[in-house]
């Protein structure tokens, strides 16, 4: 099956900022994204874990979005502007998709 190369943007972001991030992605007219939960981790701001937590302020979510290389630059700028001042990281990788026009 013939495939096309797209970009996979992956963002680890702290919970309190997630809604702002997705609102920004909606504004950027992304074809779509998926948010996944994380249970624990470590970074420059130290380690965290969900064990028994009742507050969401100290947890992370992992959001990934498959998008077109053309759109990447602008999206990356905007996203990075938000994430860099918060707790989280941003990475980009290559993926192949089947129906190119969808993304």
């Amino acid at each position, binding site marked *: 099956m013939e495939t096309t190369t797209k970009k996979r943007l992956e963002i680890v972001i702290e919970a*309190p900022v997630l809604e702002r991030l997705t609102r920004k992605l909606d504004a950027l007219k992304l074809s779509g994204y998926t948010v996944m939960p994380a249970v624990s981790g470590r970074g420059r701001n*130290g380690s965290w*874990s969900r*064990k*028994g937590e009742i*507050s969401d*302020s100290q947890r992370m979510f992992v959001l990934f979005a498959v998008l077109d290389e053309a759109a990447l630059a602008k999206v990356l700028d905007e996203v990075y502007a938000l994430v860099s001042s918060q*707790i989280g990281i941003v990475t980009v990788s290559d993926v192949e998709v089947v129906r190119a026009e969808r993304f």
Partner: protein
Amino acid sequence: MGLFDLALTNLVSPPILFFALGLVAALIRSDLAVPEAVAKSLSIFLIMAIGFKGGVEMASASLSDAAMAIGAGILISFALPFISFGLLRATSRTGRVDAAAIAAHYGSISIVTFIAASDAGNAMGLAAAGFMVAVAAAMEAPAIFSGLILAGKQEGQSDRELFREVAVNGSIVLLVGAFLIGWATGETGREVVEPLFYDVFRGVLCIFLLDMGLVAGRGLVRQAGALQWPVILHGLYMPVIGASLGLFIAWIIGLAPGTGALLMTLSASASYIAVPAAMRLALPKAKPAVALTLSLGVTFPFNLVFGIPIYFAIARAVLG
């Protein structure tokens, strides 16, 4: 019953002992944990129940007293951060933004501490006026704005958005909503939920405090190193300052002992849900771990174990 007996009765009650069990389990690094989804739901249940009960008791409350107490609570919540900020900056090397964030935590309140105090009050026969639930709700947010003022203008921050997010904060909406439902349905409504909201309540509080102990303990283990002594002390003397201010205001507006003790407890308690989240949005530069560990790992246990019985004893002596 003297202060000592009060303290003792409080110490050997199942809720406090299960909290202690959680703390110990965390400190010996046990893998014991209440799943997050259930811990959150238990707090939803406790907030629903406490709000509903407060509403039911509004039948026998004076609206002017309520209004006055709410006003007083807002004042306290707005004022305390300035005291906390000043002391932190004077005694520790905490930066301005971090100090402002911590100060906001101490102006706001801990609803679990409030619930534990109401429970203890009822056990001592010092029930409080129903409107204290409304006071608790009213005290959550003002401190956040004091915190922002103290931090000074941050670039790229939208206050309007923040105000909305804080005002519709889940626990505030639920607390106020359940309060109004209890008020509207009164005794008829009470019968419907009595077995769950009244009878089972204290057992659930035990499970929830077990989890609070685990979370507080894990926070301490993780952050042990990060906290400097002046900051740790801040977590111990701020509740005393808050309680004193609460007592003074309670005395001025003439609250009854049980009601005044709750105002003291609210003033003494520090937030670890609404404020930390708001600070991540409003003051992203502030390190979240310090404030949260201080509020949850130092001030919450202090209030729960020593503060509450002392506040009630003093309130009874001064306001009785």
